[in-house]
């Protein structure tokens, strides 16, 4: 018994050490990115401290800011979870962007063309989004599994195809008015209520909607699946080592295809919820980049469910903060993407933080370990 406790404490210590090192490198990455961001702002003739302060106050400093953060983060949580699921199964799904928008347009169609009571209509519309996203992920998935074509090229290609397909749909068959390229409004039975609809005092002046609860539910479900079910275990194992998993009796085909389709489906639900909660109709090119930002948020969150959720919330907050900044100080909101990108670069660069270790070793008088790990890319 004592030995078990001892080994447990030992492994805990080792894990704590790892966690400490990891969080240290994350904090340093953020600091470094903030520093480089400051240099850019100084070049842009802005006071960095003032800008960062305004960003944070804009995002988290007022109830209105918080509601906008919530609204901005909702779709990003879906695309980030979608990316994480794919990344963890070892598939680089950079087609989340296209899957999101195809999900949005299929949901819009079911939303305005079908007449049903809310109880059926709303779930059906969201499910249509899931099917749209999954269908859009289907071609790259099959091309990878059956032909071995890299999903990175094919998913990017399907993004472009999705953009043009939707432009055609909103310009011709689904167009509602001759002046603007947009679809009719979805039926009231299919919309997700905004907080202001429920109580005019909650979230005044924002478009925050109850979709955030669906996002939280998704996070809970995915966390449970990943941690507690056989399916989640298989997804994680396949991502870690596909050969080993196959040897262990996991069907690679089933796991990959299932993971990728569900990843696409989740992105599609995100699109559906953005339409049903915020826009209520599809306007051609109403927004772009939800999928790519989801990819980034997933990478920022270390490709874990909780990590990418927090990253999506953070990203949403930064977007909400940068909106005000763009109006007041004229700072382009792309600055946020730049800082987030920098954080990811520094976080991913594990070897950069070896410098810290080397200093420590040198101080301890130990020789610096030279690795050949960088040989294997």
């Amino acid at each position: 018994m004592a030995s078990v406790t001892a080994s447990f404490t030992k492994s805990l210590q080792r894990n704590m050490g790892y966690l400490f090192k990891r969080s240290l490198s994350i904090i340093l990455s953020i600091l470094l990115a903030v520093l480089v961001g400051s240099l850019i702002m100084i070049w842009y003739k802005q006071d960095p401290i003032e800008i960062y302060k305004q960003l944070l106050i804009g995002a988290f400093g007022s109830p209105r800011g918080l509601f906008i953060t919530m609204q901005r983060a909702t779709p990003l949580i879906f695309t980030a979870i979608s990316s994480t699921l794919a990344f963890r199964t070892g598939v680089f799904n950079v087609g989340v962007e296209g899957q999101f928008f195809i999900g949005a347009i299929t949901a819009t169609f079911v939303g305005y063309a079908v007449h049903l009571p809310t109880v059926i209509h709303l779930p059906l519309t969201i499910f249509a989004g899931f099917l749209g996203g999954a269908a859009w992920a289907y071609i790259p998935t099959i091309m990878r599994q059956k032909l071995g074509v890299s999903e990175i090229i094919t998913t990017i290609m399907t993004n472009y195809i999705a953009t043009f397909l939707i432009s055609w749909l909103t310009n011709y068959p689904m167009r509602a008015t001759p002046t603007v390229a947009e679809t009719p409004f979805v039926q009231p039975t299919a919309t997700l209520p905004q907080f202001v609809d429920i109580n005019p005092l909650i979230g005044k002046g924002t478009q925050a909607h109850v979709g955030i609860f669906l996002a939280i539910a998704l996070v809970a479900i995915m966390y449970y699946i990943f941690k507690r079910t056989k399916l989640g275990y298989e997804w994680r194992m396949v991502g870690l080592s596909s050969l080993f998993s196959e040897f262990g009796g996991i069907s690679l085909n089933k796991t990959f295809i299932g993971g990728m389709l569900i990843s696409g489906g989740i992105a599609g639900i995100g699109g559906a919820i953005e339409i049903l909660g915020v826009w209520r109709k599809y306007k051609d090119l109403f927004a772009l980049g939800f999928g790519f930002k989801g990819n980034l948020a997933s990478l920022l969150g270390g490709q874990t469910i909780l990590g990418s959720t927090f990253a999506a919330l953070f990203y949403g907050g930064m977007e909400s903060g940068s909106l005000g900044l763009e109006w007041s100080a004229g700072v382009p909101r792309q600055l946020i993407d730049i800082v987030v990108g920098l954080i990811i670069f520094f976080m991913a660069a594990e070897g950069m933080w070896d410098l810290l270790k080397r200093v420590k070793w040198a101080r301890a008088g130990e020789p610096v370990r030279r690795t050949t790990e960088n040989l294997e890319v």
Partner: protein
Amino acid sequence: MDLTGLIDVLQRYVFNIANIQGMLRLATPIILAGLCALITDRAGILNIAGEGMILFGAWFAVAGSYFFESNVVGLIGGILSGLLVGGLFALFSLKFRANIIVMGIAINIFATSATIFLTRAVWHIAGSFSDARIQGFDPINLPIIKDIPVLGPILSGYTFPVYLSWILIILTAIFLYRTPWGLHLRAVGENPQAAETLGINVGLVRFLAVMASGVFAALAGVYLSLGHLQGFVDNMAAGRGFIGMAVNTFAGGAPLGVFLSSLLFGFVDTIGFRLQAERIIPIYFISMLPYLVTLAALTIFTVRHQRAARVKMQKVAAEKAAA
């Protein structure tokens, strides 16, 4: 429609000199993006950051040309950005052990935002920027060659980056197959452990390969912003970095193959422009063409490749059985 009618239609819309010129012109960025993919692929590296490198190259070419009113400075600006982005990419993914695909995804998204930010920060313009100060490349008429009937108009009258892409195809082929450095690169790509044993500095070769890929991609950007258009448009790479990867796949890593398969995409783009003018089908489907063709070509190529491999395996098995 009788045969002469068909030939007439084909000549008018498909096989004429203007279309061949368009094909060679529009193939240029794909050729350069293909070389970007090729040089890293041959070094055993999966570089998916070509798209972002093209965008940076295009932006810095415009900046150089705008501030110095010289296309040469624009070209140099583009090349320097390629070296810088390639160098940073190599530093992070090779030296600092960042996952190269993660880095690639992040760089591509980063480049989109960064170039939009830079355009807004420097010129206070969103969307697209063009200005009389930007000096692009003028068409060059090659002496003697331009007077040859038929071949003259096909080979002469392009802007400098078009010729540069042809020269680079030849130089890359010579480098790969005729120089010791090329041999080292291929050795590193095929078996890094063996190459290391032979005393080749694997890390250095890969580092330089990534930097070279940055320059190739940046040149594709230079062509887009100074040779094709004269200015910068947000997201003007339009997936060409990835099409370049596909082109390299078809070519199996051979420079001449990259050139030939790029022509297919140049051709598709040109036909797209013609169809656009004819207003037969909605423009959105025409804009989709390059991406659809990439998917279709990848599928056909891989199916044929796999079939060929299977036939070969069967042959070997049959020979063994006979022996």
